[in-house]
């Protein structure tokens, strides 16, 4: 009996959590403009999404494109910066190491609104014209700490002698970096990259304050404006469903990979 309630509770929770997503997914298969009206099964919205044949379509597709571009650029920059920073932090000792680690954590706990507003003020103060570049820079500021945090453990797991071993075998410092150090850090860099990428995809507040007035929209700011204009563009429903499925598949792949690695390790 006890077990039954525990099970029921779990399912109820899952239902509440996923109901909105399921709701949107169901209504992505009907043409109705107003969310919640079922006007019969149709894949028109999906077709519209891919052919671009819809009202306001260009700005939605542009927003998707911007989002991906910004996320990609910010994640790449964060990965480079964060990896180098992690190597530096790893080689620090004692107090300075603690201090730098602490400073590294601040952008992650700091509320997005504050990060956004302060960056906005900074760019204004520097007379930096806001747009694509400022959004990317802003996303790098909160993406980098995640990369640092995912690379650091790889560094401490690494045998400290392997860099020297590479030099000893005749590798120049840059060859040792490419052939030994980076392959060792790669798993950490990849998970850091993924984190920075999703953080950037997800961001609204920071983007909102740093995108300037040139009409640059990412998906999140587009939806925000779109919703305020009265009613969501219907094609957002299939788009969100697709994004959700994509993330689900990605997560499954990552988990499976980790499981496999663990088993390999045990063997």
């Amino acid at each position: 009996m006890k077990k039954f309630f525990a099970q029921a509770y779990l399912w109820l929770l899952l239902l509440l959590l996923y109901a909105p997503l399921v709701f949107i997914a169901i209504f992505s298969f009907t043409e109705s403009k107003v969310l919640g009206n079922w006007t019969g099964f149709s894949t028109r919205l999906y077709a519209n999404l891919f052919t671009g044949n819809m009202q306001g379509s260009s700005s939605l597709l542009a927003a998707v494109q911007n989002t991906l571009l910004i996320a990609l650029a910010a994640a790449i920059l964060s990965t480079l910066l964060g990896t180098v920073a992690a190597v530096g932090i790893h080689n620090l000792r004692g107090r300075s190491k603690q201090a730098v680690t602490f400073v590294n954590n601040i952008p992650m706990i700091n509320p997005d609104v504050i990060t956004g507003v302060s960056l906005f003020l900074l760019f204004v103060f520097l007379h930096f014209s806001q747009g694509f570049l400022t959004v990317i820079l802003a996303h790098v500021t909160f993406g980098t700490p995640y990369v640092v945090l995912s690379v650091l453990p790889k560094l401490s797991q690494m045998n400290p002698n392997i860099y020297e071993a590479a030099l000893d075998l005749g590798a120049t410092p840059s060859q040792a970096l490419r052939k030994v150090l980076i392959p060792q850090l790669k798993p950490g860099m990849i998970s850091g990259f993924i984190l920075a990428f999703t953080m950037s995809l997800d961001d609204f507040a920071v983007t909102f304050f740093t995108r300037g007035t040139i009409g640059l929209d990412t998906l999140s700011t587009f939806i925000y404006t779109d919703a305020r204009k009265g009613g969501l563009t219907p094609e957002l429903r299939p788009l969100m469903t697709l994004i959700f499925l994509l993330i689900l598949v990605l997560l499954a792949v990552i988990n499976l990979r980790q499981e496999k690695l663990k088993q390999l390790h045990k063997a």
Partner: protein
Amino acid sequence: MADDHIIDLRHVSKRFGDKTILDDINLYIRKGEFVTLLGPSGCGKTTTLRLISGFLAPDEGEILLDGKDISAIPPYKRPFNTVFQRYALFPHLDVYDNIAFGLKLQKVPQDEIEKRVKRVLKLVSMSDYEDRDVESLSGGQQQRVAIARALVNQPKILLLDEPLAALDLKMRKDMQIELKEMHKKLGITFIYVTHDQEEALTLSDTIVVMNEGKIQQIGTPIDIYNEPVNCFVADFIGESNILKGRMIRDRRVAFLKHEFDCVDEGFGEDVPVDVVVRPEDIYFTTDPAKCQFTATVKSCTFKGVHYEMFVDTDKGYELMIQDYDPYPVGSEVMLYIDPDDIQVMHKERTRNVFDGKMVDETHVEIMDGVFECLPQEGIAAGDPVRAVIRFEDVDLLDNQEDGVVAGEVHFLLYKGDHYHLTILTDEGYHIWVDTNDIWDKGDLVGVNIAPKDIKLEKRDEA
């Protein structure tokens, strides 16, 4: 410089911050030799190896390879290869790619690489392991791969940094034999770092014993074992009885409050010395004519091949004896020592000597502390002085705060009837103490000296 030297270290010093790690090291290594740098942790042996491999640069002095200074050559251009402690294999590469790493960098042709990798794998008895993931190998197998990875580049010198430390005893013994055979077969120079004296004795042509950044003794394993030059070497290599003694004249030495014939000459007459007798060199006898002194057996422990016994001698000294036959605890035994087996050493020091300064008539500043002393004629406040303190006159206190200066027990030696301690003070001075109290290495102590025990001499300030 002789032609057969491959490496010469000349007046090499190395400091980290204000800590001196190596202090004026002079050492040469001959081509094809198996040289072991032996010493306790922190003695500077690994630093010496890292200077040779090029991961560190000396603060002073020079390192020569075949007579040419190599200070400016980075590690990746030196013709040496290292076997690291804990192997340092590349986990993302398999056995073959680990070994081929150096050859690929040198752009050796593919078929040549394959041939050479196969050859070294055979040398370390790891054929058929090419495709294995290095992390799936046992410690001993990883060690073999690490050795193969170094040897495949045909280095002029193979450097080994405690390569067997992580292996269990049985494996270590097997690897020792294999390393020795590899050295014989390849004919290249091996420089081996270890803190394991037995390993050093087993493997080396030459042993370099180091302590506190200085070379204590260089010699063959037999020399080092049979003729240690000082108490540190005698104590570090094997078991030993180290005793205070007095050279009466050539070939005659007194210790244990008895006189013995020995083979040492040239110490002078009536000179204080240290005497080393190995526990296996004290013999039991039933012949009163042979007996040199008697003792009571205090304990007897079976050690496999031999029994280890502690005895109290007739004059109150404690000795360790190893013999194939056990003697019952409490029994009176007759003992003798062959003249050949008595190793007489110069005393490194006979008393503590410090340069200091008078604070006022009854206080002297030495070791950065102010000690009370007796007023002495002709010595006034401000005078530079030399203070002499006998080992047995230094008082050690449990609480660091109770002493004039604070320090820790740095090294200790049992000398049959008392302990000889080296105290390292917080300010970095060494003070030597003879005591009957039992202290452990690392104990924190306060140091005090009674005013009457400080002997002062006036000193000319240069």
